[in-house]
């Protein structure tokens, strides 16, 4: 017999080490098998007056209806979060979770309520999203959830929510595929769909006199949806579109850069990973290609700073929006960096929290049905994105629009259209 007694232990040890490391990856990361952990909510406002100076603008929160609110029973609920905290696009999930935590802290304090977060790490895996959705439905304290990111994960989780409890609301901060919100009763989203971004992008290019556009998608669900709607709008406007695609895993685009036709007016990159866009820009410069890059909202990030390039963005400029500047500064003071995937999470959390709050204000205990009804009634005059927030009957963001900004030499962005 060969010796066989010791290796399984070692393998187990390694798996265990990997688990420990993975578990420490997120702040209070939940396991991917669907385990969830509850992060304690922030302390009530009365005891934290010291921070009121840094407190965010109150303009965005609904005015408390009456000063006798003190008499009411405390407003307690938990909200789920499904996002890729670890895995291939963990840079999205990390920022999203930070904004989620930030939103809960801000509103708990401002509204004197007690909302807690249940984190769910789906690792960008649809099977995990489905399991998390089922667990969220089981959690009686949970009124609604933020997430998931990515339209395929929305499909997986949405099917479960629809099947088990269509009163359960989930507000996606980054799913943009056209028509998906109509499929699931409980789905809302705080980002405009590809139906808005694609035509806005195309219109801008057409206005600039484009006759030929080189389009490269990154083979993700996000990217292909956007590529399709933009292509359709461009072709309708008589623009020739040359399409290519490249996997997100690739980090050398020089061969692809060489194939950019010299007579193209724009290179359109609807990419999820802004850092890849930066490499692409560098490699264009290296080969002396001067065609302008046009990035989607995924490229609206500090990772992409190629001067002269254009990016689509939800907001004219978050830092310039009155009220948002303070919130952004407050966030950065705590979490250092952000990207385009963050602020819509803040809005998603805000929508759910305020809906819950409004239910509490009527004297009722918040439950899923009442919270969903109040989410439908959402009517924010202003948001951190600098635009009003309300939903269509499908759950899509009403009147969502995109802006085009140009990246300046110093890395800042200036609205171009």
């Amino acid at each position, binding site marked *: 017999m*060969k010796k066989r007694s010791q290796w399984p232990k070692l393998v187990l040890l390694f798996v265990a080490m990997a688990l420990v490391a993975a578990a420490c990856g997120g702040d209070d990361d939940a396991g991917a098998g669907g385990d969830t952990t509850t992060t304690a909510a922030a302390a009530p406002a009365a005891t934290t007056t010291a921070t009121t100076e840094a407190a965010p603008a109150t303009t965005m929160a609904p005015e408390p209806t009456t000063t006798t609110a003190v008499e009411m029973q405390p407003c307690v609920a938990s909200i789920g979060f499904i996002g890729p905290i670890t895995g291939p696009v963990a840079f999205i999930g990390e920022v999203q979770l930070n904004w989620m935590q930030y939103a809960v802290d801000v509103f708990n304090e401002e509204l004197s309520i007690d909302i807690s977060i249940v984190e769910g790490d789906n690792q960008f895996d649809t099977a995990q999203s489905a399991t998390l959705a089922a667990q969220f439905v089981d959690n009686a304290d949970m009124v609604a959830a933020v997430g998931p990111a990515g339209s395929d994960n929305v499909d997986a989780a949405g099917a479960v929510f629809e099947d088990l409890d269509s009163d359960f609301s989930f507000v996606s901060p980054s799913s943009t595929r056209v028509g998906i919100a109509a499929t699931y009763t409980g789905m809302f989203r705080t980002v405009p769909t590809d139906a808005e971004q694609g035509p806005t992008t195309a219109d801008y290019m057409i206005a600039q006199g484009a006759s030929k556009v080189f389009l490269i998608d990154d083979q993700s669900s996000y990217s292909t949806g956007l590529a399709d709607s933009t292509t359709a709008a461009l072709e309708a406007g008589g623009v020739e579109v040359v399409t290519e695609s490249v996997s997100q895993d690739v980090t050398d685009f020089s061969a692809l850069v060489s194939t950019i036709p010299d007579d193209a007016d724009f290179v359109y990159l609807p990419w999820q990973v802004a850092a890849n866009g930066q*490499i692409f820009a560098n490699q264009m410069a290296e080969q002396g290609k001067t065609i302008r890059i046009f990035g989607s909202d995924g490229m609206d990030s500090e990772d992409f700073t190629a001067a002269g390039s254009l990016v689509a963005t939800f907001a004219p400029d978050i830092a310039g929006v009155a009220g948002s500047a303070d919130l952004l500064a407050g966030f950065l003071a705590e979490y250092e960096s952000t990207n385009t995937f963050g602020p819509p999470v803040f809005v998603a959390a805000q929508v759910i929290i305020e809906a819950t709050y409004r239910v509490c204000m009527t004297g009722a205990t918040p439950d899923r049905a009442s919270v969903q009804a109040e989410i439908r009634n959402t009517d924010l005059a202003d948001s951190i994105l600098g635009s009003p927030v309300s939903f269509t009957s499908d759950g899509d963001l009403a009147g969502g629009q995109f802006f085009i900004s140009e990246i300046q030499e110093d890395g800042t962005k200036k609205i171009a259209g």
Partner: protein
Amino acid sequence: MEFFLQQTVNGLTLGSVYALLALGYSMVYGILKLLNFAHGEVYMFGAFAGYGVLTVLGGASAPLVPIWLMILLMFLAAIVVSSTIGVTLERFAYRPLRNSTRIAPLISAVGASFFLQAAALLLFTANSRTYDAPKLIAIQTGIPIGPIRVWMVRVLVIVTSFTLMILLTLWVNRTRTGKAVRAVSYDREAAAMMGIDVDKVIVVTFLIGSALAGVGGVMVGLVFGRVFHLMGFVAGLKAFTAAVVGGIGSIPGAMFGGLLIGFAEAYTTGYLSSTFQNLIVFGLLIVVLLVRPRGLFGRQELVKV
């Protein structure tokens, strides 16, 4: 012609990085018959080590030391970090399993790979980092080759890779330890019978293979820019393909395979489509294996009954 030349340079850059990585795979496979799945993560840590040095010394836009010294220090740091990880892996993940079933070290390698990925996520977070090399060495500086101009960083990468490959070939063929590596990889027991300390030779192999991976990591950071915790997986897969196409275990095979994959990717993207870049590379591998089951440079092992 200009287009072809440009794609050739692109392929050569990518191929020489793959070759450096493939060498580590091939050397370890040659000596232990082990697919070291964690090799890509060793390379990833090398890239992060280079990034660390760059950041500590002021970053690409405001370097505190001369550029040549900066790059030298980045390579040195990567070599130290990567070879330390490589040797540690050998000691704790593979050596205890050396006499067990074939599949056990393979699983251990996969576990080590996951572990290192998770550790990188914990240490460096999920954000992409960038070397911002164009600020270090301006993208306009380069040497003209016919109608095109090749960026200095690319020249550095290609020249360094080829120098290292030549040095490695000389080392393996001319030095006593190098010959011992070959002897152990051919017949471990017979080598032990000659008094060769097999454990030591294996450690040296991991040391060199991992150091090459570290150098490759810094090169990728310099020439392509993006450094992130999952970068090892795909690069590892490609390098591994390169090693297999060349004939895993063969040093010239790994170099040839790396360059072949680099060229295949560049020409596929240039003349066909980037969509099927991976499909074509993996398809190429399968064709090579079907025609030559042991790779282009692989040797036919004697069948013992």
